[in-house]
């Protein structure tokens, strides 16, 4: 598996994790939007945090599309849950939040699962009369 492919997986994780963080930060600044003022939502992207969050989510979406073009969904999915681990670690080391033991066990389980799956084949290989399709890597 090439460096570019790992880089795209990393972009999925960073884009979705930080995209959500900035969206939430921006929406907190804007405050509660009541049903009668629903059209305030249309102006939400003018908030710099929301705008930055949307840019990050677009980066996430494009790398997600590119990754799904060469790997199975059942391969990408566990790999992208690594964002949860990242959030928990950031909360602990940057924000000084207390992380209970159950959460550390969760972090270890996700990390182990991700490590295990990325070591395996990334795509279901469909045999054709000429062998397998050339771009399908059985063992990256």
């Amino acid at each position: 598996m090439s460096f570019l492919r790992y880089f795209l997986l990393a972009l999925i994780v960073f884009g979705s994790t930080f995209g959500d963080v900035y969206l939430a930060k921006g929406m907190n600044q804007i405050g509660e939007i009541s049903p009668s003022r629903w059209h305030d939502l249309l102006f939400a992207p003018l908030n710099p945090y929301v705008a930055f969050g949307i840019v990050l989510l677009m980066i996430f979406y494009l790398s997600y599309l590119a990754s799904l073009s060469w790997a199975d969904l059942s391969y990408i999915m566990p790999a992208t849950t690594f964002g949860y681990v990242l959030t928990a670690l950031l909360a602990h080391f940057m924000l000084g939040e207390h992380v209970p033991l159950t959460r550390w066990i969760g972090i270890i389980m996700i990390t182990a699962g991700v490590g295990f799956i990325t070591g395996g084949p990334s795509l279901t290989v469909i045999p054709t009369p000429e062998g397998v399709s050339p771009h399908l890597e059985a063992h990256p």
Partner: protein
Amino acid sequence: MRHLGIVATWLIIFLLVGLNSAGDMLTARAMRRVGDFAELRRKAGILGVARAVLTEPWFYLGLLAMGLSFFSLLAALSLIDLSVVIPASASLTFLLNLLGAKFFLKEHVSRRRWISGMLVLGGIVLLRT
């Protein structure tokens, strides 16, 4: 939990999970039909990749499901506590995607993937409680 009853709460969560998972599966199917971007780019350039994606009908179905799931997330968040919505929807979407990958996308979900999937699923539940 806010004023919403248990049945209404779970109906909203199941709606969110269904749309979320449908978005992932339809997008995955679209990209499988489009094929490897790197190879396409070598053959047809970056515009060729864009054209292949934008002329793929499954891509629009996936985008529609993802858009609807985004708005149902916003709706869910305004009706149900964040600490209920996120863990429930993340773990159920993960499980549904794994089943969908096997039965809808016909991916080869090997023993390695099931074990990894269960480890990650357990980890999500522990992280979010």
